[in-house]
């Protein structure tokens, strides 16, 4: 009886020590894993500001945001009309144009094709008056919606706000 109790206590002690050791080793792995996450200086670049005062009607600029290209297009009345018209067409990824812009004239897109991540060509290169992705021939319209080709989704609209009438801030501050 005494010996058995002794045995049990030993087993418990060894088990407990093993558990504490495993937990400690797992915790020690955390700093190594975390060291791969974006560092503070990268996070500080989470937002990008752009001045749109020089942009004229029909003109488009490409600016980098978090290392990715952003298209900002000052749409003409015709392009806006085209986009609205297509609201009622049959779309692979249905979305209303008004849900894709904050101000009707400014179209802001994360310019990476939803097929395999190439950068589409500037406005007017594709059918539907929009953007053509050169890699596999996806066509996006003047609202950045997919209309033809292998891409499954519309070009995403990044989070952005207008600081004042002509200064746009892309991205959420961290």
């Amino acid at each position, binding site marked *: 009886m005494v010996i058995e109790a002794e045995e049990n206590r*030993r087993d418990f002690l060894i088990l407990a*020590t093993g558990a*504490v050791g495993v937990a*400690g080793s797992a915790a020690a792995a955390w700093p190594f894993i975390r060291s791969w996450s974006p560092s503070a200086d990268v996070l*500080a670049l989470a937002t990008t500001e752009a001045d749109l005062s020089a942009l004229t009607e029909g003109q488009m600029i490409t600016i980098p945001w978090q290392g990715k290209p952003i298209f900002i297009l000052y749409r003409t009345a015709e392009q806006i009309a085209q986009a609205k018209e297509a609201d009622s067409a049959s779309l692979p990824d249905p979305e209303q144009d008004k849900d894709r812009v904050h101000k009707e004239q400014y179209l802001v897109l994360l310019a990476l094709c939803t097929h395999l991540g190439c950068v589409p060509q500037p406005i007017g290169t594709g059918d539907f008056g929009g953007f053509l992705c050169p890699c596999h021939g996806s066509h996006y319209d003047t609202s950045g919606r997919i209309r033809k080709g292998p891409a499954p989704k519309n070009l995403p609209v990044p989070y952005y706000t207008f600081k004042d009438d002509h200064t746009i801030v892309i991205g959420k501050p961290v």
Partner: protein
Amino acid sequence: MKFLKIAQVAILAAAFIPQIAFSAGGAVKPPAQEWGFKGAFGKFDNAAVKRGAQIAIEVCMACHSFKYIQFDSLKQFGYTEAEIVALAESQGRTKKDKMISAMDDVSAQESFGIIPPDLSLMTKARKGYEDFVYGILTGYLSESETGVVDAALEDEKISKAEALELAPILHADATKIEHIKMTLDRISNGDNFNKYFPGQFFAMPMPLSDGAVEYADGTESSLKQMSHDVTTFMAWTAEPTLIERKTLGFKVLLYLVFFTILLYAVKRRIWAKAH
């Protein structure tokens, strides 16, 4: 037995250590100060860091930079967004910029003969650490000391009595009148004398004196107070992760001691069978 041997060796080695003398020198060790952020449980006094940042920007940054520190990061010490924007603008920068001095290297070289070093790491980069920085800031001649020096400079000769009076001020040997004379000549020549700088003369003119800044929180801006505050700020710029490090360290050590006791218990139990 073995322990005694090791102790003997250690004592033998230690016996030599105190009586060391360098032929190079002239530097006086700055006295140790109290720093709240030292020790296992030390914390930065946020109000002091905030005051120190004000001095750093209003005084130090005339010549020096803190190139690893962003204006924006001062928020954590109680600065408001508007205050930070104003501080950054006073240096011709924006809040997202690093704290880089407006003085360019060329004009610095022209005025001082040397490019003022970046201060981000200063408290870690000198022997004596924070005490050294505090020592430098407070190590210039005070008004009363300048008076003594000026009196001695009035005539060509330095009397024994003057030498005795000057010795503690200049940290010099009262019997070496030649050396004291040389030091005085350099002071009258306009060179910057500092008690704690190795060699006693260097390029930086006295940066702080009583009332050099007006503290926003109403603290009296004495030389000592300002030196202490700006040194505290510099200790933070040298290692912003200091508190994170100690907080984590406390947890890690607690765990390790507990785990090692467990391991020792298991070791005892397993080895009990072997004997």
